Structure formats: structure tokens, C-alpha cells
């Protein structure tokens, strides 16, 4: 037997502790069966930033020699299991400049398994996931996305619910009894053991064929090598902004072409231009300068630059003018203003649909003390 590699793709900071619990749990459970393993975070992700996709890995082997042979890798080139702890990562992963948009299943081996936590069904997620030349499985752990911050962990059992399905999707890792033993040793909590067991039984697994999924080619960049760099390591500035594309007037700021941050977003703002008072606050307070000024003086969040923080919704003085909606509701990054301009009535219907369908009220972490405890009750019910 060679080594078994598992990657956890997660939202930087928001799920750092969660990812650590999963990779650590894998190694500790494998040790119960006399195997050896190692868990580590990817170097390039550090320092992590809120929301920006990051990875941690767990490698398990029969003995130390096998493990050490595989260890000279900064990032495994192939994995047996990919765990995406946020379903909006299914749209692709972009972790830093030049990285491009990488499919969530990129490293997955043939017949490997992509484990996703989501409130959706596999059929809803597959259209977002880029196609793969070889078949693989998708395993769905039903549940809300678990987001917390750096200091206070939200113990909603997402960690053990993921660990619990691993004996089902990758029996070569360890058995159910080993994972249960590990959970008892680590947390000494019967409820957590029960959560893992229930997850093992309830997980939905489905095969994904090569002709299923998003057929788009994800964007990519060619990273310059040291020989391509300019004298004195000069980096060319971002070009000046200009008019709103395709129109006279308006303003679109210059933007770095090599880092889009599409993949940072788990929510996006939808804007009701009919109630907008052009107060400028969303535009002025956006840390990512993602708002374009339209030729008629509205402010439009450009999906090439929005990272989904929600500050625009927070500062907007008009009720339901800016609303954050779950990113999984959208199939493209098209301009909302152009859509509104073309047909105001159908835009109003589209907007209403997006706001009302809100499948999951996302919370990106700590709002007030006591919040996680009340949410935990909700989740275990």
C-alpha cells in the first residue's frame, strides 16, 4: 500500500480550527490502527486571510518509511479524498495572485471522493463543479456551513460529522470504531460520537461521470519566473481607471488582472437600483473598491472584485436596497446594472427571487457573545 492523502479546502481563518480538527483527527484515528500519519497546512496560505481559500492536508501510511518517502511535497499532487467544508468552494478555488481559478476536484484521483458540507443536494452542486476527465464520487454531509473566527470555535459537530463519513468513503484510512475511539479520547463527548455515527449512516454518495459538471475552462495565468522580472524587481502599477466599459461616462477603477478573488466570496450583494438614493456609502466604504460608477451615477458591485464582506449592506441606509445573497444562487458574474437597464421589470422579479430564496443565512463568525451556543442547539435538533 502506498500513502493515502486527504486535503481539506476551507475558508481562511473562518474555518482554520475546523480544518485542523479534521486533519488532526484523521492522523490520530489512523494511529489507532498502527498506521502513521502527518497533518500540515499549506505553506503558501500563511498568513491566512478571512474567506480566502486555504488548504490543510493529512497523509496516512502503513509505516514511517512510506510516510517519509511522500513527505518532501509542499502540496500533494493527487489526493484520495478532498473535503470542501464550504459548498461555495465548488465554484473553484483561488488562493493568491497567479493561482487562477482551480477546480475544487483538481487533485482528486480517479474514483476518489469529494466530501462537501451543504444544505443542497448533489444535483444542485454538480453544475458548479468543473468537469473532470475521470469519474469520481461526491459525498454530501448535510448541514449549514460552519464559520467561526480565530479565537472562539463554533463546536457544532461539523468536525466529527466529516470524520464520521471517512470510513465510508475511504475505508482504507481507518474503520468506524477507530474514529469513534479517537473522538472519545480527544473530546470525551458521547454526543460527538453520536454525531459521527449518524453522519456515517446518512451521508449521500453519488458517482459523478466525466460529462457531468461545469464545462467552462477556468481562467488561468502564466506566472512570471525570475528571468521575466524587471530590473530592480519593479512591478508594473495597476493602470488608471476609465469609463464604465461599453459606455460613455461613469467610472471603473483599475484592477489587478492577476488576482480576481471570485473564490473569496460566499455571498454577493444584489442591488435594487430603483430604491437607491446614490448616497455613495457602499462605494465609499467598500474595502475592495469593487463598486463601479455607472454612467447614470449608480454604484454597481462588480463581481470581478467583490469579495463578499457585506459592509455595503451594513452601511446602506435604505431598507433592502443592498442585500447579501448566498453565492451558490448564482451561475455567472454578469452585471446587475446592465440587466436592470435592459429590462427593469424582469430585473425586479429576478431581484425578488434572489432575496426571497436565500437558502442559507450565512454568518461569517462572531456577532455577539452566546451566539454559537444558541446555534448549536439549532444544528443538533
Amino acid at each position, binding site marked *: 500500500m502506498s500513502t493515502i492523502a486527504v486535503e481539506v479546502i476551507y475558508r*481562511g*481563518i473562518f474555518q482554520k480550527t475546523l480544518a485542523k480538527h479534521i486533519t488532526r483527527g484523521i492522523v490520530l484515528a489512523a494511529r489507532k490502527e498502527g498506521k502513521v500519519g502527518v497533518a500540515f497546512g499549506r505553506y503558501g496560505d500563511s*498568513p*491566512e*486571510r*478571512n*474567506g*480566502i481559500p486555504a488548504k490543510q492536508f493529512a497523509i496516512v501510511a502503513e509505516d514511517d518509511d512510506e510516510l517519509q518517502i511522500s513527505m518532501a511535497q509542499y502540496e500533494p499532487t493527487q489526493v484520495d479524498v478532498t473535503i470542501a467544508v464550504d459548498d461555495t468552494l465548488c465554484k473553484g478555488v483561488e488562493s*493568491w*495572485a*497567479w493561482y487562477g481559478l482551480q477546480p475544487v476536484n483538481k487533485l482528486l484521483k480517479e474514483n476518489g471522493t469529494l466530501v462537501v458540507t451543504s444544505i443542497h443536494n448533489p444535483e444542485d452542486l454538480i453544475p458548479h463543479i468543473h468537469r473532470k476527465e475521470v469519474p469520481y464520487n461526491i459525498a454530501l454531509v448535510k448541514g449549514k456551513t460552519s464559520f*467561526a*473566527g*480565530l*479565537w*472562539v470555535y463554533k463546536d457544532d459537530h461539523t468536525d466529527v460529522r466529516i470524520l464520521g463519513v471517512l470510513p465510508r468513503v475511504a475505508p482504507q484510512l481507518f474503520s468506524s470504531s477507530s474514529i469513534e475511539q479517537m473522538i472519545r479520547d480527544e473530546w470525551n463527548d458521547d454526543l460527538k460520537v453520536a454525531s459521527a455515527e449518524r453522519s456515517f449512516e446518512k451521508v449521500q454518495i453519488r458517482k459523478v461521470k466525466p460529462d457531468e459538471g461545469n464545462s467552462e475552462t477556468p481562467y488561468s495565468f502564466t506566472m*512570471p519566473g525570475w528571468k521575466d*522580472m524587471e530590473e530592480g524587481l519593479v*512591478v*508594473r*502599477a*495597476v*493602470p*488608471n*481607471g476609465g469609463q464604465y466599459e461599453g459606455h460613455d461616462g461613469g467610472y471603473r*477603477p*483599475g*484592477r*489587478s*488582472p*492577476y*488576482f*480576481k*478573488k471570485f473564490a*473569496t466570496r460566499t455571498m454577493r450583494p444584489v442591488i435594487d437600483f430603483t430604491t437607491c438614493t446614490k*448616497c*455613495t*456609502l457602499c462605494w*465609499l*466604504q*467598500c*474595502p*475592495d*473598491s*469593487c463598486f463601479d*460608477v455607472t454612467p447614470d451615477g449608480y454604484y454597481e458591485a462588480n463581481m*470581478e*472584485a467583490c*469579495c463578499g*464582506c*457585506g*459592509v455595503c*449592506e*451594513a452601511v446602506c441606509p435604505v431598507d433592502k436596497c443592498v442585500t447579501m445573497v448566498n453565492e451558490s444562487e448564482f451561475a455567472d458574474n454578469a452585471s446587475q446594472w446592465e440587466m436592470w437597464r435592459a429590462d427593469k421589470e424582469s430585473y425586479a422579479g429576478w431581484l425578488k427571487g434572489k432575496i426571497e430564496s436565500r437558502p442559507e443565512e450565512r454568518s*461569517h*463568525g*462572531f*456577532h*455577539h*457573545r452566546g451566539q454559537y451556543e444558541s446555534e448549536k442547539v439549532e444544528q443538533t435538533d
Partner: protein
Amino acid sequence: MEARSDLLVEEPQKLDAFKGVKKVTVEEYFGSGHRTCQGCESALVMKLMIKAAGPRTVVLGSTGCMYVANTTYYTTPWVVPFMHTQLGSSGSAALGTAAGLKALMRKGKMKEEAINVIAFCGDGGGLDMGLSAISATLMHPQYNLLILCYDNESYANTDIQASGGSPWGVNTTFTPPGKKHRIMQTRWKKNMVGMLAAGHPECRYVATVCASYALDMMNKVRKALSIGGPTFIHSLDPCPKGWDYDPLYSHELGELAIETGIFPLYEIEDRKLKYYGKTKKIVERRLKRKPVRDYLLRQGRFAHFIDEDIDYFQKKTDEMWEKWVLPGVIPIHPEEMGK
């Protein structure tokens, strides 16, 4: 006898205050495509700072989030010239650049023109490491420059270590609350602007800002660049990563810091102190400070606080307004001066 020409003070750019948000210029000189956190208030500070300063500006940045997150491998979000400088050297870099530009113009190698020089530093780079260089720079009145400290109250880039800007009792990598010792950060936040104002009588302008009040912030940057000589601005930036809160509250927490009186908004222009916004109302007793509890319980970094800690925090904040010789500015209690 004539004065040495390199000691003459050049006319800085004249940047009038923006009169209302609708008058703010549309152009951006700090674009998107940086690797900062969702809801990063410091990225907003960079954006507003350069929006206020305009295109004829050179920006220098010492190491910290706003250098590292903004320059992932061979990329930049800056439209204007930007150069990185070492952690403690925002002051020296600003001074050197201003002097260099002056020399190039004197020798005819550059067109005579007023160019803004801004060096930014984080609280680690400014309040801790760069303090002596900043102090030295403020002692050179013949150079026009601004040093802007974006203070997110920790070494946030390297995953939240305590700095001189960290508030009392906070959870950081260096000061984790434990079972035996709940409070590991036992120091009250360094009072940077008051210290610089008191210690540098030739410095014509120091100010505090918070990007939640964007217009006030931009106009202070414009004043600092127009007044002539070296100037300093201290910005309090809520940090969703280190403060542990949902990024959508970045704006609101900035407002709360002012409303609770934890961070005052003021400027000292030619030795004249002027309070701003809600801080002004607090000083004039037209506005009651919100309890610090409202601010503390919203952040994961204070999740370990018990009532006793919140009370202590409140007491220390009350002192800033009730005991300090200049409320929120100079931490000397006048009744003790005569003893």
C-alpha cells in the same frame, strides 16, 4: 547670509477639504486584487488615504498586512508609485524620499513639482518598532510628508501577536487567556498621538481618524499633506481576523470605538487641539458615552472577559475622559500635578 537652499520649505500641494461625500473625487488609486481579508478596514484606509492624496503621490509602506497582503508575488494593487520599506523605517523612508525628491528637483533632474510623500506603518511598525524613526522624522520641519499609522491593534499579518497598540486584556497569540491567568495583556494601549504632539513642538499637524468616518478621515489626510512639514495620522482599524467578528461589522465597530470613548477623534494643528464628530460631543457633554460592554461583547478577542474585566475596562476608559488633563489626549491627572 542666505539660508542653505536645501533647508528651505517647499510649498506643498494645496488640497482643500471635500465638502460632503458627493464632492469626493471618483478616481481610485488603490485598486482591488489585493489579498486582504473580507471586510478589511485597513485596505479601506489605504483606499481613502490615496483617494484623498491624489495621483501625484509616492507611497511607502513598512512591513505588515498592508505590505504583505497587497503584494502577493509580483503583483500590486497600487496605481501610484509604491515602495516597501522595513518594519521600523516608515519615518526614515518618508524623510529619505522627501529629501531625495527635493535634491532631484534642485539639481534639475526632475521637474519642480509638489509631490506628496506618504509612508504608512501598522501599529507594530509604528507604535513599537518605528517609534524612534518617526520621532526623528517629525524633527525635520523642512520636509513635507505624512506618516499614517493604520492600527489594527496587533501584529495581524503574522497571525495576531500583541503590540503596543493592543488593548488591555485582549486575546492574542502572545497573550492567550488561560485557566490560571485570564488576563495576559496587562498594558493599556499606547497613547501615540498625544505622545507625538507633546514631544514634537515643531510638528504642525497630528490627528486621529477612523475610516468609519470616511469624509473626516480623508479631509484630515488632505490637511496633513497641505500644511507643510512632517505630519502624523493615527487610524484605528477594526480587523475582522484579529478582533474575531463577522466582517460585515467592520464599519459598525469603528463607530462603536468612537461612541464608547475608547478611541477619540481629534487633531492638533499648530498646537491647537480640536475634537471631532462624536468625540467633540462627548467632550462637550452633549453625548453620553456608550458603555464599553457594547463594544467588547461584539468581539471574539474579548470572549474570555468576565464582568470584573469589563468593569475595569470601563473604569480605565472613564479616566480618559474624567481625569486626563486633556480628555482622551494627555494621560496626566491635573490634581496630582501640584502634589
